[in-house]
């Protein structure tokens, strides 16, 4: 039976709750809380991607587009029309869901390389639109002046407050996704991954499940995009380019895409790599990412979450 242990989730929750307090006390890592906000935002995307790619086996190299649509809908509606950010976030998710259904319905009939290329092409087209529709998006110069978030007069105006907001969303998404994985839906998704003919012969409506999980992962990416826009107060298209989609791929491959924990671990590690540890090697960054991806693919097909299993089998033999 696929059961995801509860104890690690509890431990992880506690660690996240005390994180800002600990970070504040140690000056060397005091800015880590800020990085963790971004890590949380990327976790939201990778949690959905893990369900889509690791469990259901459907590849996407276009999720930067959904991240971007969420960010731009939030930015355009709040900056150009002065709307309250919360409904804009919701509208962003609805718009993303519609786009995901329109693109996903024909795309998810494709398999393997074709699906990869279709999603990749979609992602690049959306990126070009962000650059070219200057009247709406501000073009390559981006959009400044995106307001921060507040709820009933409570302003999420400090890093720590935003940290808890983002990680609150991450936990909600994490628990929801775990529940899905452990249910009949999760089983149907894994069945599709293993054998489509057998899954449909057992009554699984393959295309419906694929689109459902695709839309779900797109909505999470859209939410992440809105949170990103309201945190940075500025967005520009280069955040949502093809390389970001590949970075998402690196995150879940590094963490291990067959396990939902891989999404958290991979997003966390890659965020710290790009915001902190590789910061001074800017020129080398791309090569390092490529090397990580290649090494993981060859030596750790189950990612970092697969490492304990490998060690255990060493001891046994």
């Amino acid at each position, binding site marked *: 039976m696929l059961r995801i242990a509860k104890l690690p989730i509890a431990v992880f929750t506690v660690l996240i709750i005390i994180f800002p307090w600990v970070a504040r006390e140690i000056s060397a890592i005091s800015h880590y809380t800020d990085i963790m906000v971004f890590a949380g935002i990327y976790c939201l995307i990778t949690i959905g991607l893990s369900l889509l790619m690791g469990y259901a086996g459907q590849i996407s190299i276009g999720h930067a587009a959904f991240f971007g649509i969420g960010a731009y809908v939030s930015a355009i509606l709040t900056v150009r029309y002065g709307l309250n950010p919360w409904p804009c976030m919701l509208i962003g998710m609805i718009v993303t869901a519609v786009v995901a259904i329109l693109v996903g319905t024909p795309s998810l009939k494709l398999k393997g390389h074709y699906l990869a290329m279709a999603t990749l092409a979609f992602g690049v087209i959306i990126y070009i639109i962000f650059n070219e529709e200057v009247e709406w998006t501000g073009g390559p110069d981006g959009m400044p002046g995106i307001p921060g978030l507040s709820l009933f007069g409570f302003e999420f105006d400090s890093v720590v407050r935003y940290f808890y907001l983002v990680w609150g969303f991450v936990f909600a998404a994490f628990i929801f996704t775990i529940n899905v994985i452990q249910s009949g839906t999760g089983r149907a998704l*894994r069945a599709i991954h293993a054998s489509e003919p057998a899954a449909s012969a057992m009554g699984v409506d393959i295309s419906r499940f694929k689109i459902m999980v695709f839309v779900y992962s797109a909505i999470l990416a859209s939410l992440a995009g809105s949170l990103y826009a309201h945190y940075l107060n500025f967005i520009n298209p280069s955040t949502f380019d093809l390389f970001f989609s590949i970075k998402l791929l690196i995150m879940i491959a590094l963490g291990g895409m067959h396990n939902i924990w891989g999404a958290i671990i991979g997003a966390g590690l890659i965020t710290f790599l790009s915001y902190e540890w590789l910061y001074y090697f800017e020129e080398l960054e791309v090569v390092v990412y490529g090397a990580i991806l290649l090494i993981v693919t060859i030596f750790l097909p189950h990612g970092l979450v697969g490492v304990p299993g490998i060690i255990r089998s060493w001891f046994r033999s």
Partner: protein
Amino acid sequence: MNAVREENVLEVQGVGMAFGGLMALSNLNFKVKRGIIKAIIGPNGAGKTTLFNVITGSFPPTEGRVRFNGQPIEHLKAHKIADRGISRTFQTIELFDNMTVLENVMLGCHTRFRASFMASGFLLPHSRQKEEQIRSSAMKILKFIGLGDKFNEPADSLPLGEQKMLEIGRALASEPELVCLDEPASGLNETETHLASSLIKAINAKGITVLLVEHDMKVVMNISDEIVVLNYGQRIAEGSPEEIRNNTKVIEAYLGSEA
């Protein structure tokens, strides 16, 4: 269940299937009476697996009708046909190798317990209860097919014979009216073949109609009530095992194909 119980569970009426220019099936007619074991035999390439794929909705036939309980189903997708009550196994084993033995059978229960994305995500109480029901009903089936103690093992770690049994178990989990078994005895040794035969009989004894494609003539002659013989996508004979054994056309077809 249908209010009016048709005498024939399945009726294949004038079914033809063309791949490009190749006619894999042509003008095929036969009926499957409720509650029997019916075997489909024929030389390699006779169209047996194609027929199964048409019946279970892998692809629609290029012509003709398939009726299940009197209703046409040939235009339905595979998962809809599974909903109606037809289940199947595969000639090349198609187990979910990323799951345990138990989970494979639990997935087989999919048609009976709809999984809702939202309900399971929010962990609504009834979705939890459902999961328990699925689990216990799957365990029952595992005991019935003799794999009760292996429920927690990865499906792909089982030996071939048990994988075949597991596929049959998974097919039963949807509580079908008709189960289509594609070569359940192929690749099995003598003991395993014997086990498979008695399992098929036991399934039939529960009131489930069995449609069977099989090469092992001993199995076919032993367990089936009726036999249809195909050659080059056409029906060349139909009848009881006794009649088929003495049919000259059938003997010709088999000898011809081996010569």
